[in-house]
């Protein structure tokens, strides 16, 4: 009898636990899609946006719009039990979905590596993969700590990460891109800037040793040529102007974040 009750409780517990885990997920952000694949719940991901191109399999999923504007009707007709949005999604759309009785969780743009890990853990909890998420985060944190240790006593070059041209947009301190520089042992010249729009004069004055340009819809080659014209710039003098794929930088998971730090560390400390 006692055993019967225990078995019964155990089974009901399993059943309820199962019910809690969402089975039909829609992702509205490239970073969320990447994270879901990393957590191994891609089978439950039923649709994503046309911007979700990593991993390549994600392209085969149903599409419900762009990462900013979604087709409500499509989302609703797919009967999701969880919609994961980023703060880029039009607030009116997420509000409407909530009114229709769909569970929507919105992730804000992470401010640093810590935030990325926290959001990843939260995502893991939501889709019932808490332990996997913890493992991935721990591994990433250890690797990040290792890289930091390695570059700790090296010379810290001054770095500018340019995420937009005309106007010149730099990655500032309250944006997670700042952490790529700091973890890889560099100094972000735009760290304390309040707005992300930066001026060329200020760049010249700060004189960065390395300039990293992301391919965010800019004519990157031209942008590099512009910087090369300024001969007093250390980055131009020693040919330290790099171009990096935007997808590697934005929409990070803890795992991709560490990989990018590694790449940055190679750029900033080529001798090591």
């Amino acid at each position, binding site marked *: 009898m006692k055993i019967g009750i225990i078995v019964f409780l155990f089974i009901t517990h399993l059943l309820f636990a199962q019910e809690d885990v969402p089975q039909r997920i829609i992702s509205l952000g490239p970073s969320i899609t990447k994270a879901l694949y990393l957590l191994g719940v891609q089978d439950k991901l039923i649709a994503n946006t046309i911007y979700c191109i990593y991993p390549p399999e994600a392209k085969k999923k149903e599409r419900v*719009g762009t990462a900013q504007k979604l087709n409500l009707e499509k989302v609703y007709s797919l009967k999701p039990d969880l919609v994961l949005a980023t703060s*880029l999604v039009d607030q*009116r759309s997420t*509000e409407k979905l*909530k009114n*229709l009785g769909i569970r929507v969780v919105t992730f804000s*743009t992470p401010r640093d590596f810590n935030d990325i890990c926290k959001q990843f853990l939260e995502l893991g909890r939501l889709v019932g993969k808490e332990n996997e998420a913890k493992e991935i985060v721990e591994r990433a944190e250890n690797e990040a700590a290792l890289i930091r240790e390695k570059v700790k006593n090296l010379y810290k070059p001054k770095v500018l990460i340019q995420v937009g041209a005309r106007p010149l947009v730099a990655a500032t301190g309250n944006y997670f891109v700042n952490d790529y520089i700091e973890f890889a042992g560099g100094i972000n010249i735009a760290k304390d800037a309040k707005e992300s*729009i930066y001026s060329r004069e200020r760049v010249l004055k700060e004189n960065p040793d390395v300039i990293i340009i992301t391919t965010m819809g800019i004519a990157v080659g031209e942008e590099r040529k512009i910087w090369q014209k300024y001969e007093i710039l250390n980055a131009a003098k020693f040919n330290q102007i790099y171009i990096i794929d935007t997808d590697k930088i934005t929409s990070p998971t803890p795992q991709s974040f560490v990989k990018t730090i590694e790449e940055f560390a190679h750029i900033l400390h080529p001798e090591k």
Partner: protein
Amino acid sequence: MRKRIIYWVVWIFVLTGLLLATALFSLYIGSVGMSLNKILRVILEGKGTLEYSILFDIRLPRIILGFAIGGSLSLIGVILQGMFRNPLVEPYTLGISGGAAIGVCLNIVFRLNRALGILSLPVCGFLGALCVVVLVYSLSVKKGVLKIQGLLLTGVMISFISSSLIMLIMAVSRTEDLHGIVFWIMGSLEEPNNALILISLCASIAGLILSYLFCIDLNALALGEEEAMHLGINVERSKRLLFIIASVLTGFSVSVAGIIGFVGLVVPHFVRVVVGRDHRILLVSSFLGGAAFLILCDTLARTIIAPVELPVGVITGLMGGSAFVYVLTRKQMLLKAK
């Protein structure tokens, strides 16, 4: 006279029919395909199903809002074009939309919408619009007379100033806020709050009724202010009240749906070509025509490259602009041929 009334009634029926047809078409078409048969069945007995919800919770509110906003914008267009006797005036000329935009931008930048809920966006927009209305009005009244030309110039200048201010706000705002601002400026008929949709509907119909009280005054004003005065119209009073009706309605439409261009400029011209210049018919038919036009444009915007949704302003501009150029050139060719 009799003949003219029959002609008007016929046109009102035609436009109402057109409006109903577009609304039904819009209800029928969407990224989730449904056959007519199925829709009928869903409407009659499908309460609680997914399809029912798509029809009545997603498609219908957009149609109603399209009706209210489209109708209001072209009604405002008729009133202002008639009052200023200037074919280029539209709801956004007087800087009211700029005021609404600043209100919304400040709300987004200071994160009020996160603290007070999303409904604070249209409220802030409306407050911004009201500020501009008061400003423009008080700058244009001299010795108790509302100077029409002064009103127009002040309005245009204020709209320039406000668009510069918006750019300033955008330049110093954070990336994630920038998206919110851009969305709002592009304009959209997606509105989660059903109460707000109903309020817009009531406001647009109230605007139509109130402005219809002045249709005779508008006809007289078309001859010129002095002539209108000699015809026994209280010119000052009608100018003021018309300006207030038009600007409050503009503030309302803009703060709910954002800036949807071209409806208020082009629809009145089209309707004028068809039904003539008499405001007794022009007001109503513009309202109906504008409503149908905006509903149609919104339907196209959400279906042309589904699942991606275009901003509705893209379609209104492209369709309205090209259709108007076509009509203009054809008219000129016909005149030459004669």
